């Protein structure tokens, strides 16, 4: 009994704080939604411009299965593309960092590659990978890797050269310096890019689903868009925003766990 009460008295100091931190945004959200609801009704904004939040919720609840299935599928595509894009992005940064000639030869082409709208080669992706989850992941990969490369390179360049020299004086080879110095030092910058890439990967997956598919948030979005189902558009926007925030939070969480040393040099 006493044991229980002490633990209840001591432990929760932290956990109430955490609960509080988790509840606060939710409260804000609820408040915001309520405000919009009232505003829309008061100003009599037509649903084609801005539907009421309750209408959007009702729309989702009418066919929750469709949204859930879409969410899951899109999540898989995004996750796959994101992981592949991040790994590739870091890999390219390492290569470009190690071989300046390669960077100068090909980095501009990386930039160029990003300026090609997906629609220009989406058909080619479908051609090669068919209507598979993989095809979407490829597009999501394509959209997300450049920020990772750019930021990782930036992280590398912020390493103190004297630190590198010290490692060299220990006889460290390039791989060791990379693993023990460059990569950890680039982590703070890398995570900025990962947050960005998580959003971009989701965008890529959704756009990827426009190249002929049957499930996914992109399909729902497209359907709603071309049927001028404004409530449907908003419903899909809300669901994908939730997915995006979820991914973002996941990356942030990992960041807080991994980059604990923050700004100290």
């Amino acid at each position, binding site marked *: 009994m006493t044991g229980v009460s002490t633990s209840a008295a001591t432990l929760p100091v932290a956990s109430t704080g955490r609960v509080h931190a988790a509840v606060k945004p939710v409260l*804000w959200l609820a408040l915001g939604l309520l405000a919009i609801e009232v505003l829309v009704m008061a100003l009599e904004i037509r649903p084609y411009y801005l539907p009421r939040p309750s209408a959007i919720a009702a729309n989702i609840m009418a066919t929750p299965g469709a949204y859930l299935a879409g969410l899951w599928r899109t999540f898989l595509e995004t996750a796959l593309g994101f992981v592949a894009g991040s790994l590739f992005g870091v890999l390219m940064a390492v290569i470009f960092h190690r071989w300046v*000639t390669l960077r100068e030869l090909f980095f501009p082409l990386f930039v160029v590659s990003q300026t090609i*709208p997906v629609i*220009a080669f989406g058909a080619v992706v479908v051609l090669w990978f068919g209507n598979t989850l993989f095809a979407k992941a490829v597009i999501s990969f394509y959209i997300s890797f450049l920020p990772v490369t750019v930021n990782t390179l930036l992280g590398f360049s912020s390493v103190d050269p004297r630190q590198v020299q010290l490692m060299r004086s220990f006889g460290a080879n390039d791989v060791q310096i990379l693993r023990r110095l460059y990569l950890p030092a680039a982590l703070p910058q890398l995570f900025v890019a990962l947050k*960005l890439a998580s959003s971009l990967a989701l*965008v890529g997956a959704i756009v990827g689903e426009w190249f002929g598919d049957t499930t996914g948030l992109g399909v729902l979005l497209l359907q709603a868009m071309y049927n001028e189902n404004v409530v449907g558009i908003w419903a899909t926007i809300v669901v*994908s925003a939730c*997915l995006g925030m979820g991914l973002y939070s996941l990356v942030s969480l990992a960041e807080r766990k991994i980059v604990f040393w923050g700004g*100290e040099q």
Partner: protein
Amino acid sequence: MSAYMQSDSARQIGRGLAGALLVAAIWELSARGLNLPAYVLPSVTSILGGLVNDAASLAKAARYTAAESFAGYVIGCLVGMAAAVLVTMIPAARSVVLPLATAINSVPVVAYSPLVLLWFGMGMASKIVMVAVAVSFTIFLSTIAGLDRVDRKSVDLIRSFGAGRLAVLWRLRLPTALPLIIAGMRVSTVRSVIVAIVTEMLGAYDGLGWIIYQAVLQIDFVKVWAAIIVASSISLTFFGAISFIERRYVFWR
């Protein structure tokens, strides 16, 4: 010093061109060698031909798109930085602004385009808004990360000089964040052009996206690629300009 920098960037430009030529050569060879039809991959020479043929309309569209992306880019940068500064100065704002920004950014640009086209019309305004939204998020994230990255001990030091929040921001946080902000700006250049193009594809009066959209439907892949090459050149110039500024002003790394 400046001569050194010049020769340095001259070499970089040279190498960049060499890389482009290399890829172009491989492209040309595979397109011709494998006898690929234009609807799979048109040859580089035919694209260049298309470029020359449609030079006038492409140039006009390029100006249009460049103007949209640049305007949106500038607005986006300012908004993104301002929001990041706000969030850093008023920590309470973070729990509201950050999730909201993430939410907005998690939805593909194109999902908003019906709404934005509805709200801002088919002209430049809607493209500028879309570009600004996309750019501001990138800048926002980079800027907060940069502002947060500052060495705590240095903050302590200048606080001991009596520096208030603003002085800490101006003399310490912003310079510390500058490398990351500029990296964000660099990534955004590319995004700004592509967002402008994608939005144009969904509804516009002019611009490269508009040309691409028309050309796809007319199954004119040479034109599609010609427009893409123009778009890439815009992005690359844009990217190069920001990189140049970066090298000028972030010299201490």
